[in-house]
């Protein structure tokens, strides 16, 4: 018989405890929602509107985040310039901002009375109580997740691969697309998943900056909050759908991350 190993026991108990604590609430959502209720809630146009708005707004936000964030992360990872660490800190700041503060900050910057409010109004851009405002709020809170992951992933790519690409006749742009991005893909995807998860769950900044207008700015989390006041079962049902979507997202990213770059595995 093996001797008693207290540390092994402690580790096992800690893991079991963490697992229970982290999954119990999620399980409880499904336990509290009769399957019939779940299906019925999907027929509710308000819930469906909120879900579809959530998906559209997060996808639009992700597109902006990738198109602007990937090159920005590349610049942070490959260039050395004065104030680089200050820039990195500023870019990461929204990570630690309370969502309500983020919403107020966005209002102060882009709201009708904000810093750029007059300029935006002249340009005919309206954000408050508009879907565009939701997307702005999502980009603001979710972009740093992607940029910091992407920057780490780009930094980890062997510089000589980039040098090799250049000597083989590829411009810096082609090197970025053909060598840098594929080599960093697992890290980019995990950054994307984090950003998407954060955007899907966004609540405070959206509520304060864009409002909670059904069909226009009311995303799934805002709809859940509204339902919670009137119809707990409907709130639970919509929550269950969000859990399913988020879990599917997490799983697919893990699967894709493993499949997408076979040459990169286990190197």
């Amino acid at each position, binding site marked *: 018989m093996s001797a008693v190993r207290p540390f092994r026991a402690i580790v096992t108990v800690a893991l079991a405890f963490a697992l229970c604590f982290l999954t119990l609430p999620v399980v409880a959502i499904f336990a509290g929602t009769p399957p019939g209720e779940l299906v019925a809630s999907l027929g509710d146009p308000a819930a469906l509107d909120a879900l579809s708005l959530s998906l559209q707004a997060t996808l639009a936000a992700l597109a902006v985040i990738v198109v602007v964030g990937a090159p920005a992360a590349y610049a942070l990872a490959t260039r050395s310039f004065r104030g680089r660490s200050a820039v990195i800190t500023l870019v990461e700041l929204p990570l630690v901002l309370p969502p309500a503060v983020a919403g107020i900050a966005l209002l102060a910057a882009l709201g009708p009375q904000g810093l750029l409010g007059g300029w935006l109004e002249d340009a005919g851009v309206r954000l408050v109580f508009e879907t565009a405002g939701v997307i702005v709020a999502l980009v603001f809170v979710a972009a740093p997740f992607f940029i910091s992951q992407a920057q780490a992933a780009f930094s980890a790519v*062997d510089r*000589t*691969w980039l*040098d*090799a*690409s*250049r*000597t*083989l*006749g*590829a*411009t*810096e742009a082609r090197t970025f697309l*053909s*060598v840098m991005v*594929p*080599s960093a*893909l697992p890290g980019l995807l995990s950054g994307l998943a984090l950003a998407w998860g954060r955007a899907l769950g966004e609540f405070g900044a959206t509520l304060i900056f864009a409002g909670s207008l059904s069909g226009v700015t009311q995303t799934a989390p805002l709809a859940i909050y509204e339902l919670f006041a009137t119809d707990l079962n409907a709130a639970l049902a919509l929550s269950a759908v969000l859990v399913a979507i988020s879990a599917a997202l997490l799983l697919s990213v893990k699967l894709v991350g493993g499949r997408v*770059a*076979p*040459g*990169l595995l*286990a*190197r």
Partner: protein
Amino acid sequence: MGARDPLSEEEGAALELGAELRLGAFDLEIELAVPAGCCLALAGPSGAGKSTVLRVVAGLLRPDRGNVRCGEATWLDTEAGIDLPPELRRCGYVFQDYALFPHLRAWQNVAYGPRREVRGRAERRRRAEALLERFGVAHLADAYPRTLSGGERQRVALARALAPRPRALLLDEPLAALDSRTRAAATRELASVLREAEVPTLLVTHDFAEAATLGDTVAVMAEGKLVQRGRAADLAARPVSAFVADLTGAVVLSGVARPGAEGLTLVDLDGGGAIASVDHATGPVTVSVFPWEIALEPPGGSGSARNRLAVEVASVTELGSRVRVGLEGPQPLAAEVTAASARALGLAPGRTVVATWKAAATRLTSS
């Protein structure tokens, strides 16, 4: 490699380089030229700035001042503000760890360079496989780099570097990542590639034997400067300094020279003993002699060789059919003898022998 490049005039052009650059502890200051079809081997210890030279030529590093010309084309002229990016210089660069793209299969690595010129995936693959075939690794076309051995990676890297028909070849320690068994075959292969190459080649190595085998000429670098340049045999026979002599593999001893009888120079070795050389020198000198010029005799023997030093065997290392014998005397030295004579002498650490060599095999350089 198919039809001749229409730019063959440029292909046949010489590479000229002059560069000055601050490099941490010392300044890189170098000028060299390599004719078309020739290989200049840059030899020297790690950190001498050899790879930096390659990076400057390829356009991966911009020197503080300098110019790089390949035939008629000016790649870099800091005075005139010309600095072509690496993709327009098109150097075939083989990196020290080969730097194969891990997310691409072997054939895709080779096809990466000529992607613009060659239309269609099937044609690109056909051409890449033809090149891989030339290096005997066509069967690995679909393999990812991480599954290849060192020797296989080296061949894929060479094929990749040659695929876009480079205007110059730059090889950074192309054999250093290989184990000793693979290295001999890889050296022969590389030598034949270099013979066929019509472009100037710069090869960087810390191993003088490799430089001597692969380079038409050898340039020795130390702390950012060229110390000596010439044919390998000339460097070994007439090293300008103890540093070069040491790099070429010679045994290096120190002493003080004075004129001796019969037109010979006598050198009193530091630590005791005296030897003779046909070279002329006075004052403090560095003595260099190749290990294979040194013969070993049992004590008390009387050979014809002029120089005789009583020494003690410190180590015996077999190198194939030859044996390298480390010796402790007034100053450490080493001899290389056949395995047969090592057996006949019963060489083992602790045994006393006499190391002998000719005055004519003894090089002197003033130190």
